[in-house]
């Protein structure tokens, strides 16, 4: 497996994205690399896996790799995404605007948008050999992938010119035409009818604040392209041997096809097949049980074999503490 700037772990719910990406980040750091592990899932299970406090949210934290039996290793840092802190950094401080501050709260809904900006920021800083990314399940991962486009279209030059004009009332004629043709002034009249003046004022203020920082938002927003670049990223589509989710895994492979290249891996996690194959029994009911379990694990492999994607397998680790699971999984990366 080649060293890349970024490694992305994605997949449907509960397949092990967080657990596996933590083990990967620890493994890479044991290879003397400087690694940043970022989780953009608001559920933040990574904090539990690594033993972080809630207060660490939004702050890059150094992880004691010796807790995972790694002596003599590189460096691992972790970041639990805080949409609020990302936005404040971009805006250069806390904003008083009611709309912006409400929406950037932990469950305000700006998560995937801020995630792209944060990951891009960390890449631009260029302080790490590799960034490992733990993503939210299914659809929200796709939302994340599509965020660069959404940001770009929101910060469309036309909109910002129009709103600047509304704000400053300095009227070069060209803009006036744009204002009328964009329909934004009409839009605002309707908006005021429904929401009242107070909101429209807040709204205009919010738009101004954001458009004032337009450059920071879109400068260097090339994450989407970078992720498609084979020299830049490794992709891990995680599935779980204990989940038989019909179309979900395939859908995700197909949806991410647009974004992927040849350095991608289908990671089948929590596999029992080694244990099942070693299990000898004469009892009819147990033979049936074993064969059924084996058969179902094979269904996943077969249903995904039509895609030209390299498969790697991780066994289920029979430990209850997530940290212990991670510790054992590190060695499986070594043996690949």
């Amino acid at each position, binding site marked *: 497996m080649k060293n890349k700037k970024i490694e992305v772990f994605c997949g449907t719910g509960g397949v092990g994205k967080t657990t596996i990406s933590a083990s990967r980040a620890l493994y890479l750091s044991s290879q003397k690399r400087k690694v940043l592990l970022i989780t953009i899932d608001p559920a*933040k299970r990574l904090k539990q896996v690594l033993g972080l406090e809630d207060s660490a949210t939004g702050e890059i934290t150094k992880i004691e790799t010796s807790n995972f039996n790694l002596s003599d290793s590189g460096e691992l840092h972790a970041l639990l995404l805080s949409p609020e802190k990302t936005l404040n950094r971009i805006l250069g401080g806390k904003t008083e605007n009611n709309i912006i501050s409400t929406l950037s709260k932990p469950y305000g*809904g700006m998560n995937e948008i801020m995630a792209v900006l944060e990951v891009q920021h960390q890449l631009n800083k260029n302080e790490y050999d590799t960034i490992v990314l733990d993503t939210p399940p299914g659809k929200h991962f796709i939302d994340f992938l599509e965020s660069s486009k*959404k940001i770009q279209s929101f910060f469309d030059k036309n909109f910002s010119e129009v709103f600047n004009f509304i704000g400053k009332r300095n009227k070069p004629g060209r803009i006036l035409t744009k204002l009328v043709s964009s329909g934004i002034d009409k839009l605002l009249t309707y908006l005021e009818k429904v929401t009242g003046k107070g909101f429209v004022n807040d709204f205009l203020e919010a738009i101004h604040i954001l458009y004032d920082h337009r450059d920071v938002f879109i400068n260097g927003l090339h994450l989407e392209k970078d992720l498609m670049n084979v020299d830049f990223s490794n992709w891990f589509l995680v599935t779980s041997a204990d989940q038989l989710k019909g179309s979900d895994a395939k859908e995700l492979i197909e949806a991410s096809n647009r974004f992927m290249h040849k350095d991608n891996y289908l990671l089948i996690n929590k596999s029992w097949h080694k244990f099942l194959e070693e299990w000898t029994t004469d009892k009819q009911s147990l033979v049936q049980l074993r064969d059924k379990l084996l058969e179902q694990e094979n269904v996943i492999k077969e249903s995904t074999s039509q895609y030209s994607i390299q498969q790697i397998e991780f066994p289920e680790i*029979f430990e209850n503490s997530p940290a212990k699971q991670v510790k054992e999984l590190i060695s499986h990366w070594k043996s690949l």
Partner: protein
Amino acid sequence: MSPKKLYIVTGKGGVGKTMTALALVKALQSQTSKNVYYNCFDTTPDKELCKKLDIKTIEFPIQESTTEYIGRKLGSKNIAKWVMKAPFFKALFNIVPSLGNMITLGHMIDTLQNEDDDIIVIDAPSSGHILTVLESPKNFNQIFRTGALVKDIHRMTDFMQSDDLVETWVLNIPTELAVTEGRELIEKLGKSGISNIKDVLNNALFKNELIANEELPEFLDRKVTIEKEVIKSLDSNFDLVFPMYIDKSPIQLVKRIEKKILTELKK
């Protein structure tokens, strides 16, 4: 059981939300003569599976919900259509997805309030994102503050906080991460005023009948022990427990979980 109007099935990723939501639709269908619908919130349902299970789906596509809502507010469907086509508005909706979440939820509640005979079961997003959905009315209340929209938002929160109308199922599987996430979710739902909660354990190997009665190989023994340890150490009392079934074909799973729901709820 006296059915509610809205059921929300949520929990960590992969805990069995989809299977359980479908099973709950079936269980409700067999208990009432009402129209029970399955909804996937902001994703598309597996229509083929629903058809095989004879389950009706209901969707609230964001574009249509918004046009209808804005149309009602402005007293004109045409203006609403025009607004929704404006490029700026589209860009705004894309960048603030929680606005769309709130409108979808609002449309759903409207439908339920107008149709006495409808029941909806939501196969909801997992923990992190369901909170975004459920907190959206509160957040937009704070954003709009006054005006016609705020009244609508209050109507929404009243509905969502009513224990007679809404029941939320928080699913867990017997692992430390899933059960912890379940506890955190229940606490946060409580803060949003949602307290009619069923705490459900799914996929419990130690509840599988075959497993419970047999001499097991070491790895399965170990798995059963771990499951029991997790549940004990996190001190959780589940309202419902579903075993891990060996046959994972979705139709079979849904039928088995449905049966289990019916027998457990009769107790």
